[in-house]
């Protein structure tokens, strides 16, 4: 093939797939590449899996494909999704059930090998230190508390699954942009060492992996966000990519949102750290010479990604149990809303002392005043504030203390300052999970990667 068109699927677990349906029906796309996994998501899926061993995948996979598959199969549109999360095999089983129920046929490929939770000892025995990538800390400090450990795989297994005839490729943890690079490699025949083209492909993936954020969502400062048309019917970004690496980003005709130099460059630099050295499993991308040429009418041409050879190591992201959070939110109305919330925060802290709740950390936020801006919030005149929500959270090693924390609040309704409202019950303690990024040699991981093909009937 000389050109291929890809659309964003979901940008996170919980995203909206209506724009994806529009792209399938009116965007002339051949692939939907769907990113269900933020760094945080595996922590959420871990909690699901604790309750039910068959869970641990992004459950929105099922309602999403229920709605999208009829339109997609009619047009031969294929899917690449990392919705497998911590349990790609379980996701495939659930999907097979869904297809069987509906009498739909598809070839589903499952990519595994990213999950190394039960191979940590083997990896260390073979010489992998798995020290913390940022701090250099020894894994021993958290090893007994690990709840997941997944390595970011690259695009090659996805390309191979497509070459084997998959209609749907289901993965666990892969680099987000690899969901897009996989189909590009497969369709356009890009070599595994054609670094500049692979780099262009990573740019495509990065521009599309956050769905609406590449089309004017979550964009703009004061006076500008209002200029993005019809966010209610936003079109997710679509990439048109040629075999020689020409890239045009656009969106479904008639959809809302905006694709131009400004909205795309915000997404281009999003969460990449060093843009001159963005390390992915397939290529190291340098954006230093990259240009975004605005063609008008929600079309932007992308040129000039430079690629350097793929790294010798892959990134592992592990999660470990890291204490508990107890938290509460309650509201105060004028008069003196802020002063009253402050007084209650002081009262609760005193109560913690008297009841021997001894947190490692206390977080106090005045929602409506400074929970987002911190010390850079405007110093409100107390009496002009309409209402303030007090949010308090504590970090504890002992779950009992986190559970006890919300019980310090209800009595204040009758025995605290006046005009308290919006008390919506007490929150159960949350397990906090620390994240542990580390590097691991690619040979030890890639030798374990498998592709399982499943037919539905």
């Amino acid at each position: 093939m000389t050109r291929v068109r890809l659309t964003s699927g979901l940008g996170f677990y919980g995203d909206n797939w209506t724009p994806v349906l529009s792209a399938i029906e009116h965007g002339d796309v051949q692939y939907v590449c769907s990113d269900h996994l933020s760094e945080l998501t595996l922590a959420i899926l871990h909690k699901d899996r604790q309750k039910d061993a068959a869970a641990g995948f992004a459950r929105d996979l099922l309602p999403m494909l229920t709605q999208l598959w009829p339109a997609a199969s009619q047009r031969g549109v294929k899917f690449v999704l990392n919705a497998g999360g911590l349990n790609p095999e379980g996701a495939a089983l659930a999907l097979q059930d869904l297809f069987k129920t509906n009498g739909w046929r598809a070839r589903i490929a499952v990519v595994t090998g990213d999950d190394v939770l039960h191979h940590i000892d083997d990896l260390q025995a073979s010489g992998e230190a798995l020290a913390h990538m940022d701090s250099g800390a020894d894994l021993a400090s958290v090893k007994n508390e690990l709840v997941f450990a997944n390595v970011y795989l690259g695009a090659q297994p996805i390309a191979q699954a497509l070459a084997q005839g998959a209609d749907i490729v289901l993965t666990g943890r892969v680099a987000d942009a690899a969901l897009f690079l996989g189909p590009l490699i497969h369709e356009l025949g890009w070599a595994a060492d054609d670094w500049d083209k692979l780099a262009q492909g990573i740019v495509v993936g990065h521009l599309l992996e956050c769905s609406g954020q590449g089309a004017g969502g979550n964009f703009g400062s004061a006076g500008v966000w209002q200029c993005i048309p019809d966010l209610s019917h936003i079109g997710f970004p679509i990439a048109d990519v040629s075999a020689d690496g020409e890239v045009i980003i656009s969106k479904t005709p008639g959809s809302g949102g905006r694709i131009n130099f400004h909205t795309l460059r915000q997404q281009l630099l999003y969460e990449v750290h060093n843009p001159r050295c963005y390390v992915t499993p397939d290529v190291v991308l340098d954006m230093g010479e990259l240009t975004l040429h605005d063609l008008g009418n929600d079309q932007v041409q992308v040129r000039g990604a430079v690629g350097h050879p793929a790294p010798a190591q892959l990134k592992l992201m592990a999660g470990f149990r890291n204490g508990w959070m107890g938290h509460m939110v309650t509201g105060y109305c004028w008069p003196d809303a802020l002063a009253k919330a402050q007084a209650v925060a002081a009262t609760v802290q005193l109560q913690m002392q008297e009841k021997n709740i001894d947190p490692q950390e206390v977080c106090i936020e005045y929602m409506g005043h400074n929970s987002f801006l911190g010390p850079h919030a405007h110093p409100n005149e107390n009496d002009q504030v309409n209402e303030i929500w007090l949010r308090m959270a504590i970090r504890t090693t002992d779950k009992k203390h986190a559970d006890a924390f919300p019980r310090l609040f209800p009595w204040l309704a009758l025995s605290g300052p006046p005009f308290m409202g919006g008390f919506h019950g007490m929150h159960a303690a949350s397990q906090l999970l620390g994240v542990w990024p580390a590097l691991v040699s690619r040979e030890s991981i890639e030798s374990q990667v498998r592709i399982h093909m499943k037919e539905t009937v």
Partner: protein
Amino acid sequence: MKLRLSEIAHARSGDKADNADIGLFAWEPLGYALLAQHVSAEQLNIYFAHLWPSTDAAPSIAAARVERFDMPNLLALKFVLRGALNGGASSSLRSDNLGKTIGAQLLRMHIEVDDAQGAAALQAAQQEINRF
């Protein structure tokens, strides 16, 4: 003259493990020159000190908490704030556990610039915004 960054730039922020990541985008080239000249990693280290409440590292170490990357081709500066997210999203006590609003905090920062350069950048930014 004093400028607020929101008058000449837009921003987006997010997370990677315990690191906050901010893109700061000038509306046009005059504004980019001002950002490059006046918004340093050292300044952000002080401006965002509240994100590291329990850190008592020596100033030389603390200064390395913030890194700046210049992207003139995109009229943008990228900042990485290491260890700024209270342990990272799933370990944080904060409402904004993902650091999404840190970009808004940055846009509220003021810089002191040359009067003529500032006025020209303000006008050019407004023209670009009007064209948006």
